[in-house]
């Protein structure tokens, strides 16, 4: 496959679709599929035939607004329909070329206008199982350009210049990591894509893999060229069957098109990718644990150094990046590192995908430039807290992150700003809580998660999280004392500073941040035996009866 051949495929595919008067895109991501968007798509196709219209009905990946699904996007008019079901198919097809179906129309300008799509540029636009549609949208152009016109160092220079930082949560500069692996000595090197999205409440990686798998494969291939690897692994959660299925189809198609395999683009570069299934262990998101899991062992982290960049999979130099990081690579190579660096804030460049969930109107996936305020994400894009409830906290970064109150909403979203206020960027989960959530209970929920997910290697994490859980349960039951709070703070410090891996080091974050911003709720539980949110089940305080 050469660039000329790629162009021909792109031209032919575009010409093929240009024949149609309209394109009807039906979201078939996990969210919409659970509401039978597959049946809707079949019904639409049937109606197109019955009404004799010249229309292409396409299966696409996630369109982002999961709350309003199933979603249908009509092109070229760009009309978005929400909550469309089988019974609406006739009306939707009949309306093509005329007035749109008013009662289904979704008019959420605020939700979409504030977003900038880089990672999600193809999500909801292409059929995830058709590689030619990806190619028609400039897919694989970056890989072939890199192979023919750029040196591996040149590729790394662009990635470094872009300022891209690891999207899995750590925020380590991607260019620097690639440089280390490329300089590492070794005859065999590996590239691993970390798709073990274990943060409960986060589904960015699932969505990218389901909606645009080719983008991740292309990113991995470019990385392999840059660091000198010839074999890659994608580690995906077994809980994401649709993502696995679409990745398998994607890998097959890429091999068939000669974009994976031997001598890609008629160059000496060869690369292939294998899928490895996770088996439900949160700690496997940590890179050394993930490597242990690919090697068929228990996913337990190892001390670093040596870093995987020097001695990783089977002791060979290994590059590990997150799904979203790889998804950013192709546009960076295509448009240049400077273009990417022009977006975002000072030390956090580009855009970030967030999974906006919890007590918020527009739940779903959003992609925004770094530096945008939390308030804008929650109140404008997310549409605020529904049902007349009051915003209480936003939780970022999953079980390793923190809960931020209303007063912190005006900070700009970046790696450093979130760290400064006691939370982390994490992989991009953003869970909004309202006045019906009890923050002590939420802290207990996260500690329980870390307690069961601790691999058991280090005592501070294994025993510390269990003790923290017991103390928090005591407070939730209304039996806590103020000494318990001091003990919790002391224990958090121990767990944080003496655990080996990220899981233990960050496990106390939800407790510490709720203690910092919602201390009054802890005191209320202890002194007044009262849970204002009405979540905790405790005996009411004995009230003094006036004589």
């Amino acid at each position, binding site marked *: 496959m050469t660039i000329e051949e790629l162009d021909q495929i792109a031209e032919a595919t575009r010409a093929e679709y240009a024949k149609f008067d309209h394109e009807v895109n039906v979201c078939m991501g996990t969210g919409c599929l659970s509401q039978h968007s597959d049946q809707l798509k079949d019904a639409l196709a049937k109606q197109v035939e019955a009404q004799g219209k010249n229309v292409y009905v396409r299966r696409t990946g996630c369109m982002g607004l*999961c*709350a309003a699904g199933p979603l249908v996007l009509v092109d070229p008019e760009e009309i978005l329909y929400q909550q469309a079901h089988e019974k609406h198919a006739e009306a939707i097809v009949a309306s093509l070329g005329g007035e749109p179906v008013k009662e289904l129309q979704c008019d959420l300008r605020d939700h979409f206008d504030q977003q900038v799509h880089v990672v999600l540029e193809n999500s909801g636009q292409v059929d995830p199982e058709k590689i030619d549609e990806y190619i028609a949208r400039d897919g694989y152009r970056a890989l072939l350009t890199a192979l023919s016109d750029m040196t591996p160092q040149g590729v790394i220079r662009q990635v470094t210049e872009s300022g891209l930082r690891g999207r899995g949560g750590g925020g380590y500069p991607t260019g620097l990591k690639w440089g280390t692996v490329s300089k590492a000595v070794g005859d065999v090197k590996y590239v691993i894509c970390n798709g073990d999205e274990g943060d409960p*409440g986060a589904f960015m990686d699932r969505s990218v893999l389901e909606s645009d798998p080719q983008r991740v494969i292309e990113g991995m291939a470019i990385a392999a060229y840059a660091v000198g690897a010839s074999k890659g692994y994608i580690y995906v959660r*077994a809980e*994401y069957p649709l993502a696995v299925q679409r990745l398998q189809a994607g890998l097959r198609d890429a091999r068939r098109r000669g974009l994976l395999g031997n001598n890609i683009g008629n160059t000496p570069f060869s690369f292939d990718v294998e899928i490895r299934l996770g088996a*439900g262990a949160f700690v496997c998101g940590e890179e050394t644990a993930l490597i242990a899991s690919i090697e068929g062992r228990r996913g337990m982290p190892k001390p670093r150094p040596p870093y995987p960049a020097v001695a990783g999979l089977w002791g060979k130099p290994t590059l590990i990046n997150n799904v979203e990081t790889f998804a950013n690579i192709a546009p960076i190579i295509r448009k240049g590192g400077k273009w990417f660096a022009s977006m975002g804030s000072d030390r956090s460049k580009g855009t970030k995908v967030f999974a906006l969930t919890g*007590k918020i109107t527009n739940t779903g996936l959003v992609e925004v430039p770094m530096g945008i305020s939390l308030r804008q994400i929650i109140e404008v894009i997310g549409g605020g807290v529904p049902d007349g409830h009051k915003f209480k906290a936003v939780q970022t970064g999953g079980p390793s992150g923190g809960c931020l109150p209303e007063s912190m909403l005006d900070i700009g979203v970046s790696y450093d700003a979130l760290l400064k206020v006691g939370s982390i960027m994490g992989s991009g989960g953003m869970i909004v809580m309202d006045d019906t*959530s009890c923050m002590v209970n939420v802290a207990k929920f996260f500690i329980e998660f870390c307690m069961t997910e601790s691999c058991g290697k280090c005592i501070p994490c294994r025993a510390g999280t269990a003790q923290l859980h017991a103390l928090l349960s005591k407070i939730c039951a209304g039996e806590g004392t103020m000494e318990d709070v001091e003990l919790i703070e002391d224990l958090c410090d121990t767990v944080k500073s003496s655990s080996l891996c990220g899981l233990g080091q960050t496990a106390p974050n939800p407790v510490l941040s709720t203690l910092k911003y919602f201390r009054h709720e802890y005191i209320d539980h202890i002194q007044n035996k009262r849970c204002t949110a009405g979540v905790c089940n405790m005996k009411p305080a004995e009230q003094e009866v006036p004589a």
Partner: protein
Amino acid sequence: MPAYTPPPLPSDDKRWKIVNGTMRKNGFARHALIETLHTVQSSFGYLDDDAIRFVALSLRVPLSQAYGVVTFYHYFSLKPPGKHTMTICSGTACYIKGTDKLLAAAEKKLGISQGQTTPDGAISLTAARCVGACGRAPVVLTDGELVGQMTSQQMIEQLERWAVE
């Protein structure tokens, strides 16, 4: 080095051939342990002693290590599942939207706790960490099929339908 001869299949159940296929595809390498266990679980529904012994022997992995892997990962089950499975998501977004109450209601209805199967083997109740469909929270999986925005009443009705089958 002489070619490796794997042990004979435990029985003539066709599913063992699928399991063997996964191992052969990976050249009976030790690192195929987790992949093979996935195949066993998807073919048989769970991992029993015979299966773990067979896989460990075939891949030349110590039995203790194979058992250690099986018990380390939540996805693997040592007990056969019931005829139907109700999986309740307990990820953060679902928790905030009240799946703890769904779980409590299901436990009360079935008289078992999460991770158990009803004595007649009809229904298993499990809790999942996060199925990544947080936009539709609260989410349950009825026999693996994802259902969003679940209410207690809907869930109980489903359990009742299964119980009379």
